[in-house]
C-alpha cells in the first residue's frame, strides 16, 4: 500500500511517500522532501507568510516526491495530510492541496494528528516498541505513554513550548534562524560554561517555560547582550577567549545559552523519568524538532542508562517536521479502515494527541 503524506503545520512544508509492502515486509520510505521558511535574525515567522511559502512550494514538492519515488499517481492508495494541531493558515494551505489531490485523483483522504505522526514515525525508525515519548518542538512539549488505544498525555507544558522558548531567546540574542534557531543556540552553548541561576519549574509531571524565558531575557538585557550590535561585540569577547578563564566573570551569550539549555533540558528529562517510573517503561523515544538537540539526547541517555534502559532518537530527517511521518501514521489508520470524508476534512489548530483512537495498536 502506498500513501502520500503532506505536512505544513508550522514553517516547514514536507511531502513523503511511504510504501507498506503487501507481503507484510518492512515499510519503505520512497521519498521525503521538505522546504523550510526562514525568517531573518531577530524575527519570528508570521502565519500568513508561512502559508504563502507553503502554497508556493507544495505542488513542486509533490511532483519532486513522485519523481524520486518512481511511482505514478495510479499507484497511490491514499492522501494523508496534517489535520492539526498547528498554525491555522499554513495548515489550511496544505489541507486545500490535499483535498484537491483527493478529488482530482479520486483517492481517499486521511486526516492525521501531527503528534501521532511524530510518534509513529519514531517507532518505525527506531524500532522502540512501547516507549515513553517525549515530544518537543516549537509548538509542543508533551510526555506521552500509550495505554488502552490512546496516546495519553502524562505531562506537558503549562504555557509555551520548549522550542518556542528557545526560538524566542534566539531572537533576543540575534542568533540566526538558519538552519533553525535551536541548532544555533546549541552551537553557542558549547562555548559557555558558567551556569547562571534560572527558575526551574516542574509541577508534578508538567512544566512551565514562560517564567524561564522572561528571566533569561531579562538577564540578557541587564547584561547588555540583547540586540544585533551587542551580539557582534559579545562574539568577539567569546572568540578572543577573554571570558574563558574567570568563572566569576560577567556571563557571555554563550553562558546564557548554556544555562538555558541545562535548565530546560533537565526539566524535560525529569518529567520523562517520572512518566517512565509511573508506567514501568525503560524505553524513551524523543521526537519533534528539539529532539535533534545533542545535549538533550545525551542527558536523556544518561538518565535512561541509570534506569537500566535506553533512549531512541531520530535524526533531523525524521524528527524535524516532515511529510513521511504523516504518510506513516495515515497508512496505519487507513489499514484499519479509517478515512476522513471531505465534509470532515477541516483542519484544526487544537487537536490533542489523546483524542486520536489508536486502533492499529494492541
Amino acid at each position: 500500500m502506498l500513501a502520500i503524506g503532506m505536512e505544513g503545520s508550522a514553517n516547514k512544508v514536507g511531502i513523503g511517500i511511504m510504501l507498506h509492502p503487501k507481503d507484510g515486509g518492512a515499510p519503505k520510505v520512497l521519498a521525503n522532501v521538505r522546504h523550510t521558511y526562514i525568517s531573518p535574525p531577530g524575527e519570528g515567522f508570521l502565519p500568513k507568510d508561512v502559508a504563502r511559502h507553503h502554497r508556493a512550494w507544495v505542488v513542486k514538492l509533490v511532483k519532486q516526491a513522485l519523481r524520486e519515488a518512481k511511482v505514478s499517481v495510479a499507484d497511490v492508495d491514499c492522501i494523508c495530510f496534517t489535520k492539526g494541531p498547528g498554525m491555522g493558515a499554513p495548515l489550511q494551505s496544505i489541507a486545500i492541496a490535499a483535498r484537491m489531490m483527493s478529488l482530482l485523483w479520486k483517492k481517499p483522504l486521511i486526516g492525521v494528528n501531527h503528534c501521532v505522526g511524530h510518534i509513529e514515525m519514531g517507532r518505525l525508525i527506531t524500532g522502540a516498541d512501547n516507549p515513553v515519548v517525549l515530544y518537543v518542538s516549537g509548538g509542543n512539549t508533551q510526555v506521552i505513554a500509550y495505554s488502552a488505544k490512546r496516546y495519553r498525555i502524562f505531562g506537558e507544558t503549562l504555557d509555551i513550548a520548549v522550542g518556542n522558548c528557545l526560538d524566542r531567546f534566539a531572537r533576543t540574542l540575534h542568533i540566526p534562524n538558519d538552519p533553525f534557531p535551536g541548532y544555533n543556540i546549541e552551537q553557542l552553548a558549547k562555548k559557555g560554561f558558567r551556569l547562571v541561576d534560572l527558575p526551574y519549574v516542574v509541577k508534578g509531571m508538567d512544566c512551565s517555560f514562560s517564567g524561564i524565558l522572561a528571566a533569561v531575557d531579562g538577564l540578557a538585557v541587564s547584561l547588555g547582550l540583547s540586540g544585533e550590535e551587542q551580539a557582534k561585540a559579545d562574539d568577539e569577547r567569546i572568540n578572543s577567549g577573554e571570558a574563558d578563564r574567570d568563572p566569576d566573570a560577567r556571563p557571555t551569550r554563550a553562558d546564557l545559552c548554556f544555562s538555558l539549555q541545562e535548565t530546560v533540558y533537565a526539566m524535560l528529562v525529569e518529567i520523562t523519568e517520572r512518566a517512565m517510573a509511573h508506567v514501568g517503561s525503560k524505553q524513551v523515544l524523543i521526537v519533534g524538532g528539539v529532539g535533534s538537540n545533542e545535549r538533550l539526547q545525551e542527558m536523556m541517555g544518561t538518565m535512561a542508562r541509570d534506569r537500566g534502559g535506553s533512549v531512541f532518537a531520530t535524526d533531523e530527517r525524521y524528527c524535524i517536521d516532515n511529510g513521511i511521518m504523516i504518510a506513516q501514521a495515515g497508512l496505519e489508520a487507513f489499514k484499519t479502515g479509517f478515512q476522513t470524508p471531505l465534509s470532515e476534512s477541516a483542519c484544526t489548530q487544537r487537536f490533542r494527541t489523546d483524542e486520536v483512537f489508536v486502533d492499529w495498536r494492541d
Partner: protein
Amino acid sequence: MADYKPPPLPSPFSFTQPAPTLLTQGAEAHLYKTVSLDPSIPAALKIRPSKPYRHPILDRKLTRQRIVQEARCLVKLIREGVKVPALLALDWEGQGGDSGWGGAWLLMEWIEGPVVRVVLEQWEAWMKQNSSSLDEAQRAREEDRVRDLLNRMGAAGAEMWTPMGLLWRGEIVIIDLGLASQSTQDEDRAVDLYVLERAIGSTHPRSEALFDALLQGYRESYKGATSTLKRLEDVRMRGRKRSMLG
C-alpha cells in the same frame, strides 16, 4: 538491556550491616528498608541519588531543596498529630560516589502495609480475570469496596496532598510526601490533584471513574475543598484550551 544496578549508597549507609534492602526505585528516589538508630527497630531509608544527567550545581540545589521540603513537611505533620512516618535523621548533602556527591537521604519510621497503588493494581488484575464470572451484585460489591478505599484515600490526603504515596492497613497512612507542596494555595493543591487524576487515568484506564470517589472523600474531610475543586476545573481546562502553538 543492561540489568539495573542502583547507585552506591551515600555515606554512612555504605557502612550499614546488614546492607539496606532496595524496595522500589521511583523517578527521583530509591526506597530501602533498613534499621533505625535502634538496631531492633526497622526504618525506611529514602535516598535521592545525585542525577548525573544534570549540571552538578543545579543537581545539588534541586536535590537539597526537595529532600528538605519533604523532611520539613513530615516534621510539621508529626507536630500536628497527623499519621505520617516520623523523620529520624536527614542529610541533604550525602557524600559518596566518584564525585564526592552521593545525593541526599532521609531516614524515617517504618510503617507496615501494602501501598494503595499496589492494592489498586492487584484489584484491577483480579477484576480483569474474574469479572466475567461475577454476577451483577458481586461486581457492584467489588466496585463499592474499591470506591470506599479511594474515598478514604481522598480524605487522608485532604490536608496534605500526596499522589499515590499512601499506605493502607485498614487505615490510610501517608508515606510519600515527595511531591507534596506543603502549600495552602488552591493552585498548588489543584495541580497536585490533577497530577493524581491523570496518573490514575494513564495507568489505570479502567479506574478513571473511581477518581470521583476519591474527590468525594476529599470534599467531605477538607473544609477548603470547594475552592480547590473549583480551581481543579480550571487546571483541567488549561491543558485542553491551550493553543498547542506556544
